[in-house]
């Protein structure tokens, strides 16, 4: 972009060497800015990780210690002793896995229907699918709660998981339908002639082809379910059902006023908890970065 064109145009013309020099300086300057911005953005993460390993008395040092001495790996045990933090991690993992599974299964089946079968009102119904993207969840919140309350599902994970098995959300259906539409209808017809029923076609041919879409959607579901706060706040009442986000709030209220054996406030464990909460996100991001970026661009372009 800017800079590149200038440098190219000045090659081989001694009269423009001044411009070439300026362009190079500009490029170095921008590189320096890129690196500095990167350091500024990375710093809070560095600070979270180092603080997570600090002993209680180092948390409030002014000026702070830039590196914990010594690193207290013990904090990761302690956070599980103060409250059942790792139980909360497990609870959230169960909700995330079951919810994502439901979303991927049902959205792919529905997308299959919209992509390969013709039926009356198909286009009208698909427009309806897309229009539900405009509906904020706050509008449906209270009646949905009343339904689950009536069913006796409050204080279970069902209200957080089961709805994902009913379509998996407009965007997922859209994504699967778009992807399936790129598969030639002839393949579907040929499979049929060879005696491959709809369910077998779905399981044996469509699903293996859709692995990239499935991974992309799993990432999006993970980000939603792992972070969700309002759902768990409404439906998960007893402490042993809490998710990580609720657990962090619980940890904070537990630590307020609590002191360690040395008489220091224990809020260093809040950073330990935060780091534990972000580890799954980081692991998924680093292993599946390609799909992550892909998912973002797809959501960004199509809405």
């Amino acid at each position, binding site marked *: 972009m800017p800079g590149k064109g200038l440098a190219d145009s000045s090659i081989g013309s001694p009269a423009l060497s001044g411009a070439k020099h300026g362009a190079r300086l500009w490029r170095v300057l*921008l590189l320096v800015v890129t690196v500095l911005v990167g350091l500024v953005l990375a710093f809070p993460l560095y600070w979270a990780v180092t603080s997570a390993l600090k002993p209680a008395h180092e948390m409030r040092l002014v000026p702070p210690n830039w590196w914990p001495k010594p690193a207290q790996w013990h904090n990761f045990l302690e956070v599980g002793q103060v409250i059942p933090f790792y139980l909360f991690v497990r609870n959230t993992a169960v909700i995330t896995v079951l919810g994502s599974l439901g979303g991927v299964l049902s959205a792919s*089946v529905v997308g299959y229907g919209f992509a390969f079968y013709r039926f009356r009102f198909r286009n009208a119904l698909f427009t309806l699918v897309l229009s539900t993207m405009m509906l904020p969840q706050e509008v449906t919140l209270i009646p949905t709660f009343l339904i689950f309350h009536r069913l006796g599902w409050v204080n279970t994970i069902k209200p957080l998981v089961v709805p994902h098995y009913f379509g998996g959300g407009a965007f997922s259906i859209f994504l699967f339908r778009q992807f399936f539409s790129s598969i030639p209808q002839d393949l579907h017809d040929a499979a049929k002639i060879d005696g491959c029923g709809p369910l077998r076609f779905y399981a044996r041919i469509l699903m293996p082809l859709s692995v990239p879409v499935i991974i992309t959607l799993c990432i999006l579901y993970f980000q939603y379910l792992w972070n969700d706060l309002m759902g768990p706040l409404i439906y998960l009442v007893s402490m042993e059902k809490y998710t990580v986000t609720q657990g962090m709030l619980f940890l904070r209220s537990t630590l307020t006023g609590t002191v360690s054996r040395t008489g220091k406030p224990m809020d260093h464990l809040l950073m330990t908890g935060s780091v534990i909460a972000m580890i799954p996100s980081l692991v998924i991001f680093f292993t599946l970065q390609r799909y992550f970026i892909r998912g973002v661009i797809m959501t960004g372009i199509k809405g």
Partner: protein
Amino acid sequence: MRHLVLFEARTRRQSQISRVEQRWGYLLISPWILGFLFFSVGPMVASLYLGFTNYEMPLPPRWIGLGNYVKAFTTDQLVPRSLLNTSFMLLGVPLGLGASLLLALLLDREIPGRAVWRTVYYLPSIVPTVATVMLFQYIFQPQYGLINSLLWKAFGIEGPGWFNSVQWVKPTFILMGLWAAGGPPMIILLAGLQNIPQELYEAAVVDGAGQWDKFANITIPMLSPTIFFNLIIGVIGTFKIFSAAYIGTAGGPAYASYFYVLHIFYNAFSYWRSGYASALAWILFMIILFFTLVQFKASEAWVYYETTTMRQPGQ
């Protein structure tokens, strides 16, 4: 035999659709149809109705007409309060988008380790909200937090109360939002930048255009659909702020960060005023719809669509 019949139905594609195919179609989309009825349209109609009632849980709903809406627009001081707070947060949308664009421009060039920097810029946006809030509360802690102790040591300035200050709490939330500027919006803008045909810039250079001319007359117009899209997403997201505020301040201090969805939430699930909360939710729905429409209209005036060169990435 059955397949042969199906095959024949296919060959007469336009004329009619086989009954079997129709039935399979409806069967396959049935999970969505059920979900649509029970989790979208049903609850939507129900909450519209509840909005016209007084409904406090054990007692049955009682029709009060526009009573809830009258209350929201007249006597409930927290409605204008929370809407004003939310509007203040709208400042964060152009700021965030500007920051995302700057980051995207930095990365849209041949630099050593570009993939690494892109990853570093992106990382803050994947940190769970609860971790981000706790981390920023620690860094911006007024007495011993990193920022204020550095301000004091280096410049002798007594830093503000950040999250604990009525004046500073909203700007601090905006600042926290800027940390994630390298996330999805930046990636989308970067994809938009990379889709701008190089020939446009080359032609502009031939015509003697400078850096700024190229930026203002090529980059911005070519990116405007992308910018516009992110603007809509940002405004709608701002009206729906909940988690960060609930975790960070629960609306405080002195209602300075009391945002609209907090008001819905507390009315619905702390005071159990289900009727009133439903009305509040419908007001939010109308606001979101209104902004979406206004921005669609406004965009027609300045958005530059070029369908032939704007290939969609990810296709």
